[in-house]
């Protein structure tokens, strides 16, 4: 018992709090596995947040809202994809620009939506399961996106590990020259991965504006996209560790208030720094010699591909 907080409620709200980060991070993992570094996760998330919010308010249907969020994120990622894959622009600079662009555009679209309540997203009725003491509260009383996010992580893991699609995706991220020589369409595969990443980030963003907060304010994602990026590295590009990373760090930053109220001994600032510190640590280990391979990092990450001769 942490000074007055019910641990069941704490864990349950931690699961909800980390959903946007899980979704954005698993999307970015697929993008990076294909060898593309898209630093625009924050921008795609906030575009998903506003597009999802606007769609949900206009249609009154939260499900269409989530769909709108995914489409918004994917459309923004399309800009990144075209610029980096076809016009061979620098991925780091383009990704950063995408974040700034997404923040600005979302704030413009969002004018007039301040203070509106979106239609509520209901809890999945699991009947008697949710009445189980503690466990029911932790596991069986969430909305469908919480379950979907875990299923998506499982699906990405299975696809990358067991399917030919996953093998080709990893191959493209490992060496685009070799993949091209064998006749795989490097650019097309990367574009699809980028759009999947955008859709997942958009879905995560929509979850913030439709469920977590739920309302629209400028800059509503508040750095969740950056944490997602950090968690991909922390997870050393392994899907299940994304879940772990998101629960460890994603939740903590959002639970600052609870922890403060509970009088936790560690200043929250240290907790919010932790994902970034660990990311730096992982990057340092990675850059030392053989670390890169053992870290599972895609060898062609961030390199543009141009089919010469």
């Amino acid at each position, binding site marked *: 018992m942490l000074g007055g907080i019910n641990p069941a409620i704490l864990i349950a709200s931690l699961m909800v709090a980390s959903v946007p980060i899980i979704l954005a991070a698993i999307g970015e993992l697929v993008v990076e596995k294909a060898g593309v570094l898209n630093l625009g996760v924050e921008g795609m998330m906030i575009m998903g947040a506003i597009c999802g919010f606007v769609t949900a308010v206009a249609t009154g249907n939260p499900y269409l809202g989530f769909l709108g969020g995914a489409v918004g994120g994917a459309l923004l990622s399309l800009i990144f994809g075209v610029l980096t894959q076809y016009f061979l622009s620098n991925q780091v600079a383009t990704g950063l620009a995408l974040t700034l662009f997404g923040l600005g555009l979302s704030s413009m679209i969002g004018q007039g939506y301040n203070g509106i309540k979106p239609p509520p997203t209901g809890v999945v009725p699991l009947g008697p399961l949710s009445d189980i003491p503690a466990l029911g509260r932790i596991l069986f009383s969430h909305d469908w996106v919480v379950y979907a996010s875990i299923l998506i992580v499982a699906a990405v893991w299975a696809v990358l590990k067991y399917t030919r699609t996953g093998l080709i995706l990893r191959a493209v991220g490992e060496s685009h020259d*070799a*993949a091209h020589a064998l*006749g795989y369409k490097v650019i097309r595969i990367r574009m699809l991965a980028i759009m999947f990443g955008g859709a997942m980030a958009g879905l995560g963003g929509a979850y913030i504006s439709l469920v977590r907060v739920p309302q629209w304010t400028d800059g509503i994602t508040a750095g969740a996209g950056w944490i997602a990026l950090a968690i991909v590295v922390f997870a050393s590009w392994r899907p299940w560790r994304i879940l772990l990373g998101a629960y460890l760090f994603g939740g903590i930053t959002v639970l600052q208030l609870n922890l403060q109220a509970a009088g936790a001994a560690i200043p929250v600032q240290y907790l919010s720094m932790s994902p970034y510190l660990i990311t730096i640590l992982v990057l340092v280990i990675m850059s030392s*010699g*053989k670390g890169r391979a053992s870290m599972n990092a895609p060898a062609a990450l961030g390199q543009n591909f141009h089919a010469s001769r």
Partner: protein
Amino acid sequence: MTGETTRPELLAVSGVTKAYPGVVANSDVSFSIKAGEVHALLGENGAGKSTLVKMIYGLVKPDSGSMRLSGAAYAPNEPRQARASGVAMVFQHFSLFEALSVAENVALGMENPPKLRDLASRIRKVSEEYGLPLDPDRMVGDLSAGERQRVEIIRCLLQDPKLLIMDEPTSVLTPQEVDILFKTLRQLSAEGTAILYISHKLEEIRALCDEATILRRGKVVATCTPRDRSAREMAELMVGATLTPPERGTKAKGDVALRVAGLSVASPIPFGTSLKNIGFSVAKGEVLGIAGVAGNGQDELLLALSGELRTAPGTLSIDGADVSALGPNDRRRAGLVAAPEERLGHAAAPDMSLVENALLSGATRQGLVKNGFIDWPATRSFAEGIVKDFDVRTPGTHVAARALSGGNLQKFVVGRELSQAPTVIVINQPTWGVDAAAAAAIRQAILDRAATGAAVVVISQDLDELLEIADNFAALNEGRLTQPRPVAGLTIDEIGLMMGGAHGMEVAHHAH
């Protein structure tokens, strides 16, 4: 090979032309291959061999001309179609994924791969049938160059190809491994698979191939039966000129200039090879040739000698002074210059001009920087001197290094180091990817420097080159260096054993 006349024609290429902006890679090329024939495609770098086979494999589309495979029109749009038609290719570079397993790599090159577990057992079976044992579960990054090539060959064999294209397959193999490869290829040919064999190693082609098509500047200049021609005749057909081997003056050896003792260092390169207890010494006027299959520590040795990688005290001395702790610039000051293998990005900055590139390595020894300011006129004349002395073909010294052809840039970066009046010269792959005329000029320049008293270390994967210019010979094998031995009297078999023999492949072939 019997029944030459009865064998049906498998592939016929007629009048194929392909142009890239500024260069015609293939111009009206025609030739044909019969089933079961081993056909050599000969030519220098840039003669258009690679473009031609890429068209056959569907990676590049011809501008005009046509191809027929087994009598039917054949125009693959992508490698997938080529593979479906029974054409497979073993690449020279760039077609394996280091972080994936052998089985995964094989699966990526197949059209309808079976489940990985079934594939693994098929890989084991086929690899043993052909005397090329492979463990399907190993990471490709951990394999030797010879084993990697086996992965590519097995990948092709699993698809029962009618035509197997091999692009410079022996450049990464020890002589013993070459023997095993040739046994496998003869076995395939006897089973009716045609082999299109690209190489510029003429003795190998004479030993292996039934027919040869020789390309020069994108055109077919001759066809011949390699067994009936001497290597020199074929070389002159390739180059279109008479070749003269480099001359070496007789010289007296001086004192030891470079001494390396007990040098061990971990590799900074992913999947690299650590150096283990390397020791040798080179006297003034001596050329030491270091052979070895790619990836056995060559890059690491160059880094350790040039000073990019520091080593333990006492491991490296120049003229008796310990330089182990010094960086590249201090070592240059002490008299050691180095030319790495990778021209663009390591030896030269691609987007900087030749003048700027001359400054980058010449500043220390040539005194091109005074009180922190660059002496541009002196730098320019240093660069112009290199261009003139080493016959670098360039519009001027203001052009970017990237704009030069491989051979010309190589002459420039080697010339830049040789022009600094060094006492010790270290060069990795001095003539890699360079045409025969430029290669001869570079080798001659190295010998000239040695004749004036420089100690030279040449690291190379080209055995013929080392035998031509080196006085002493040593080989790198998994990061260890053999005892240097005088070149005179060495046999190819002995050299092969120094390079590590056949990496455990003998057993499989004895079983047959």
